[in-house]
């Protein structure tokens, strides 16, 4: 389950991105005053890692997170739901989707989401596998929750230039997000790894779309689960 096994779907999209963009992520432009890496560095690894760019000082991981939040907010607003960022030290809920009450307050139904973003999707029989940190896995499993929790994984092109496409006609956010529920899943053996991760399978059918969100919220308001 290495990130090197690039999936066909991802390949398709990335290729589409490459066609439209002159800049190829596999060959980053050398920066001014830097003719190349020192010989003793791992060139393969360097080529995979993104060079710091003019990103307003934002770390690439932070950038991915913010982009995925914006992506999900766009979907939620189109579906007519509010998105709030929990104001509490709880790192397993990134966003809460809810209906709107008076003066912008929130009301039921509520749906908590752990949001992940990756540029390296892994496929398994057409579905996706995401290697979720064990802590997040454990926080998403419990049944004793007032509001249900889901995992949302947003996939973005590797090249940040391909994340959005904008014309005077449209704004395209790339690529998409899938969701899954780990409610009631069994314990995962801890193992010896320092930062253990759990491979989580996300069905390709569970695209996190406007209609999917509406359906989830409808099920919750009927007393069901996501």
């Amino acid at each position, binding site marked *: 389950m290495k990130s090197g096994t690039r999936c066909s779907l991802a390949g398709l999209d990335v290729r589409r991105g490459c066609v439209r963009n002159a800049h190829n992520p596999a060959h980053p432009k050398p920066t001014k005053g830097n003719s190349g890496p020192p010989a003793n560095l791992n060139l393969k690894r360097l080529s995979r890692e993104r060079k710091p760019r003019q990103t307003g000082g934002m770390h690439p991981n932070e950038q991915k997170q913010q982009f995925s939040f914006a992506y999900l907010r766009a979907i939620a607003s189109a579906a007519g739901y509010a998105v709030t960022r929990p104001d509490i*030290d709880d790192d397993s809920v990134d966003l809460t989707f809810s209906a709107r*009450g*008076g*003066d912008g*307050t*929130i009301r*039921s139904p509520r749906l908590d989401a752990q949001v992940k973003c990756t540029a390296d999707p892994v496929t398994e029989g057409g579905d996706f596998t995401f290697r979720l940190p064990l802590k997040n896995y454990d926080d998403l499993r419990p049944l*004793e929750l*007032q509001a249900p929790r889901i995992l949302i994984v947003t996939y973005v092109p590797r090249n940040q230039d391909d994340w959005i496409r904008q014309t005077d006609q449209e704004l395209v956010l790339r690529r998409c997000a899938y969701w899954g529920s780990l409610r009631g899943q069994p314990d995962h053996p801890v193992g010896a790894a320092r930062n253990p991760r759990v491979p989580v399978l996300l069905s390709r059918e569970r695209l996190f779309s406007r209609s999917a969100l509406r359906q989830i919220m409808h099920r919750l308001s009927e007393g069901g689960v996501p």
Partner: protein
Amino acid sequence: MTATLRDPDTLRSLRPLEIRRYLEATGWQRSRVGAPHSPCWTLRKGKSDYEVLVPPSPELRDYPLRITELLHTLEVAESRSLPEIWQDLTLSGYDVVRVRVQPKDCEPGSIKLDQGIVLVQSTREMLLAAACAAVEPRRAYPTRKARQAAEFIQRVRLGAPERGSFVVTALSPVPPSLEPGADGQERLDVAEPFERDVMLKLVGSLGALRRAAEGGSTTDFDAVVREGVSANLCAAIADMDAAPAGTEGVEVALSWARTRPVAAGLPRRVLISSGAMPVIREAARVFRETTPVEEFELTGTVIRLDRPDTAREGTVTILGFVEGSPRRVTLQLEPAEYAVAIRAHEERLPVQCAGVLRRTATSFRLEGVRGFDVANVT
């Protein structure tokens, strides 16, 4: 949101019952969906509809998260600051007594340290007096208080100072009343717990004290003893006012625990003006001096023996401690006990006995003397 209100443990400390009682008291209604055990509560205010979710148990994993949502909605719906709402919510299980004084020579919000100590001490004495009165109304209470009252005062907490003129806040935890059953019926015929009795007695006795002080006669004060006015209460209130330059008066305000509602119409605050304090202080002295102390235990030395030739009984004067000061106490003794007194006097031994201590014009008298003997001095 303040730092403490981001801490999951702090948020978990707020109990669902406290929240529900708060919502009930502030006009929220249980959502009709899934009533009567729906976790959703709604409030309609003008054109706005608000909803809050009260998770049924703090054990739920997302309890802290749901509480932050609830607090945020309350903040918006009530247009009040979060610290204010938080304080009201967390104190909903306490009867809160606020003693407010404004010394004339002090800036608002602070008080001289020594006065602060007196104020806290007097607040304790006031509550203890109310607790004793809740056990049994009397004109004065001895140093050793009834067990129930002594246990009560151990449970009272001192709250954080509040803004404004100087306020001492005492928190008395009260058990929550049971929520109405499925039929919506509450049981009204059950006696209140002692903690609540004390507070009811406090508010009643302070009102009575103010009336008596306005009247100003011994009869006026005697008439309110059964309402809980005692030497101890009078002394506590008079001490609160004891700032060198005087105060603007003493105000005692009570907010009832939301988890145990009271009948409507009870007074929430009593203001006792500075002008009434001399009368109250005098009432404390008179009550104290005219009240016999039951079960008084006296230890001291025999300093005078007096028995006329024809009499069986003799009068003995003992130098002992009364309320912390050396006092002469006289008592009548039967022949056998009188003989013990003579021996003690000759051999310079201390004696001990018990009885009812009464103050006379010039000294003290011990009546109904029991157990007169040479003291066991180790």
